[in-house]
């Protein structure tokens, strides 16, 4: 029972699934569920340990800095829990949603994606990070094109194009680092980074920012996102919004806080975050397709998270984590609901949603709920994280970002509420009532309940955020644990 | 002390005195007679001396002044106006046309004798009667009122059927609201 399972088990499952697919289709559908259930159980059971004292696993006997280590600290614990839980819910949703053959491929890619993202979160080695990154991205590319239609293929190609930029630059950065200080262990790099001459370090920083910024949807590197989100099947959208991006942002922040933790870099992050937020929300305003709208909205949310990270104080990082958590849940809920709404209305257009509130009352209710939650209205969980971000940003004395964030959230409110009122009030009579499959409803129900509970007891999450934030901010501790445990 | 019969008599005297000295006329300016009213009211023959003045609506008026011939169409309006007035109310037929049709004696669409359709209290003959005549007519009416003999309204009530009959005879499209008491 060790963090390794987080990577090994889904990877193994991923390889197993096609073989089983030959035997029975049903089993294929079941297995990921079991795996994710196990992983969530594992993550929850490991959680207290990881939070108290980081577990450092050593792969294949070599001690760090030579061997590959897994660093299971508080933040890793938190993120793995988040990933596995959201993953489980997504599986629950996909169970009835992904009816299109070949399902085993879908689940295999899904498992690989889980593997990759948990790996990104866990690994303590930068090259290993790159590898997991590739796993994730490749899985993501192929999931984007899963529907095998024209738009999907196009979106996947764009994603691949931009993604290849990302991996190239990231790899280049790693190469330069290795060439200079002959190590790949993050902790080790963090301790030695100062030996690299300044210009080289700047170059590395730029390469990393671009390489990881692409995956974490930083403007202007996020061109792939809207297409990928909107063309991929809905659960995949949830996967992107809930898992991939979170992992990417985590890795970006981890590297920046470890190696380039200076005021200027943080300011740069804040500025980029604000730009990302504003531009994303503004472009979301007039979108025609609902899933594109959701995509832009989640880019905006990422901008918010980047701002909060960029402020770089302990409460702000805490707030950022909390926001990541809320966003993962709420955006998944929205994607789930939107998935069935689109599926039912038979068109991706928002204008086609008129009066669906009467045809699909429960799904529409979930969508409305998610909309209210993501705008940041009480008593939903979104309110607290937004409040905390604002408080922390203001505490750092940055009033301008506060105002801009609020303006952006007014815009957000406008376009979400437009959709909601379309759902309920644009057509009064129900045309044909169709049921959403139980598994989907259960998935959405779970998310809703969690959102409400967290909305009323934010401490449930916040309580664990403080150590996580410290883990991210406290470079010395990371080096200490990462190198000699 | 007076017994209440005499008391009521005294009250009647006061009432009649007041009525006599304040006659508000609603002048129904049909035909040519209307032209005689302005001189009657204005400075030359100042009729206000006798408390005579025009009133804006039949609700406030006491005297209905029919100046000249009445075509059948007009009769309808006149009847309506008369019935909207408050009692006691008086009608003055003004000019020969109201008496016997005057120069319209053989016209196909004027009424000849106003008395068959509305209870006239005082006629002023002449074509046209001069303002002096008009004023003397008013004074005659005042005398009648003082003696309590100007009971046109009462007559109209009592012989309503007769009046209605006559009215219906000339007015073909009879669409009048009932005159409820």
């Amino acid at each position: 029972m060790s963090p390794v399972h987080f990577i090994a088990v889904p990877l193994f499952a991923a390889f197993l699934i096609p073989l089983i697919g030959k035997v029975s289709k049903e089993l294929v559908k079941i297995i990921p569920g079991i795996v994710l259930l196990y992983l969530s159980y594992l993550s929850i059971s490991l959680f207290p340990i990881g939070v108290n004292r980081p577990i450092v696993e050593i792969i294949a006997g070599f001690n760090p800095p030579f061997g590959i280590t897994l660093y299971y600290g508080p933040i890793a614990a938190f993120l793995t829990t988040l990933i596995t839980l959201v993953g489980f819910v997504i599986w629950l949703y996909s169970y009835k949603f992904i009816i299109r053959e070949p399902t085993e491929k879908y689940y295999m890619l899904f498992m690989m994606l889980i593997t990759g993202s948990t790996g990104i979160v866990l690994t303590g080695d930068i090259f290993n990070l790159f590898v997991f990154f590739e796993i994730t991205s490749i899985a993501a590319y192929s999931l984007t094109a899963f529907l095998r239609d024209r738009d999907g293929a196009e979106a996947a190609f764009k994603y691949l194009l931009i993604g290849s930029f990302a991996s190239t630059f990231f790899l280049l950065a790693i190469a330069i680092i290795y060439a200079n200080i002959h190590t790949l262990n993050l902790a080790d790099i963090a301790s030695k980074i100062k030996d690299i001459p300044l210009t080289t370090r700047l170059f590395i920083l730029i390469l990393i920012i671009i390489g990881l910024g692409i995956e974490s949807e930083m403007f202007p590197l996020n061109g792939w996102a809207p297409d990928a989100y909107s063309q991929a099947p809905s659960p995949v959208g949830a996967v992107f919004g809930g898992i991939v991006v979170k992992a990417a942002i985590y890795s970006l922040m981890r590297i920046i806080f470890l190696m380039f933790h200076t005021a200027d870099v943080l300011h740069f992050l804040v500025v980029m975050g604000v730009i990302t937020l504003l531009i994303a929300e503004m472009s979301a305003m007039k979108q025609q397709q609902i899933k594109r709208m959701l995509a832009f909205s989640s880019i905006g949310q990422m901008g918010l998270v980047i701002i909060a990270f960029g402020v770089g104080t302990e409460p702000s990082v805490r707030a950022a984590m909390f926001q990541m958590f809320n966003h993962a849940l709420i955006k998944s809920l929205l994607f789930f609901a939107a998935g069935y709404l689109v599926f039912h209305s038979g068109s991706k257009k928002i204008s086609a949603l008129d009066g669906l509130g009467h045809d699909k009352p429960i799904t529409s209710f979930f969508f409305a709920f998610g909309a209210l939650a993501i705008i940041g209205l009480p008593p939903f969980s979104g309110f607290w994280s937004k409040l905390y971000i604002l408080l922390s940003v203001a505490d750092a004395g940055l009033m301008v970002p506060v105002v801009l964030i609020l303006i952006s959230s007014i815009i957000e409110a406008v376009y979400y509420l437009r959709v909601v009122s379309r759902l309920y009030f644009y057509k009064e009579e129900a045309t044909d009532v169709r049921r959403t499959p139980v598994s989907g409803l259960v998935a959405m129900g779970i998310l809703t309940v969690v959102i409400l509970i967290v909305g009323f007891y934010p401490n449930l999450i916040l309580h664990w955020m403080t150590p996580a934030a410290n883990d991210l901010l406290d470079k010395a501790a990371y080096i200490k644990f990462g190198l000699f445990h | 002390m007076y017994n209440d019969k005499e008391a009521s008599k005294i009250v009647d005297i006061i009432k009649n005195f007041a009525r006599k000295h304040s006659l508000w006329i609603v002048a129904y300016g049909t035909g040519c007679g209307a032209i005689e009213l302005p001189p009657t009211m204005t400075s030359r023959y100042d009729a206000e001396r006798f408390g005579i003045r025009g009133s804006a609506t039949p609700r406030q008026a006491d005297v209905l002044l029919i100046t000249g011939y009445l075509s059948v169409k007009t009769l309808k309006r006149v009847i309506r106006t008369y019935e909207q007035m408050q009692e006691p109310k008086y009608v003055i037929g003004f000019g020969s046309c109201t008496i016997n049709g005057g120069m319209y004696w053989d016209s196909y669409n004027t009424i000849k004798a106003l008395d068959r359709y509305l209870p006239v209290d005082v006629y002023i003959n002449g074509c046209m009667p001069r303002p002096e005549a008009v004023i003397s007519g008013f004074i005659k009416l005042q005398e009648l009122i003082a003696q309590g003999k100007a009971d046109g309204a009462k007559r109209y009530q009592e012989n309503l059927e007769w009046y209605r009959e006559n009215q219906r005879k000339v007015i073909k499209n009879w669409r009048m609201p009932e005159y409820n008491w």
Partner: protein
Amino acid sequence: MEINWSTILGIIFTPIIAFIVGVTYGGLTRVITARVQNRYGPPIFQNLLDIIKLYSKESNINHGVMQHLGPVFAITASVTTLFFVPVIKDSTVFTNFSFHGDLIFLLYIMVFGSLGMALGAGQTGNPNSAIGVSRGLSQLVGYEVPFVMALVAIMIQFQTTNLNDLLAVQDHFTKWIIFQSPFAFLAAILAFLGMMGYAPFDVVIAPAEIASGPPSEFGGKYLGLMLTSRSIFTFAKLVLFTDIFLGGASDFITLLIKTFILYMIPVLTGIVFPRYRTEQSIRFFWSWPLFFGIIAILVVVF
């Protein structure tokens, strides 16, 4: 409030006197008008005869309870106004409740009647009545503003809102407020023209246009009641102005003289002027009277 005989006497006699004086003034108006138009004119008690005649009408009609109550509202307002104005300066009988109310109360109770009247006229369903009411209310907004300005100026100047205090202030004729703040007087008297509703401000009851407007459906006892309340109200307003500007009156003779002089202002203007259109009269009230009012206030401030 303590009941004593002087109060009761005042309550009984004030309205009667007010009625008689008001009616006589009404008659005088007609006589004077006649004289100006080179006529002989009616007897001076003509209005009294009219009112008695109207009461003695045998049949009456109404269009519903609001029309029935409209004139009652009117007379309530006028009598109440009268009761809250000290008719005779520091006499125990004729300063009825003037200590229990003040100018602002008077401002409001004065519109009370016209609003009640408007409700009554409204129920008749006669378009002319509605038009008259709309004109009247519009004009009300016109002349209330300068009037209030004048009153505010005076209130601030003498630090009181009670009429008796104002009377106490102007104990000698040099201290009359008409001399102390003439601009306030100008504003108020111009507003007074509108208040009395004689030409050129008689847009409300414009007999030739809208068949006497609001009262056009009122006849018999209702009209009589309206005329009664109008007589009383005229007197009340005159007394109010006398108290505010002309230092009140300590006996009836002075009261009659002062009120008569005041009364002649609207009457004489009314005789010689044609009628304004409604918006013209509103604009008039918002031009010169407003200007005088502002001057009055500024004079007080600096």
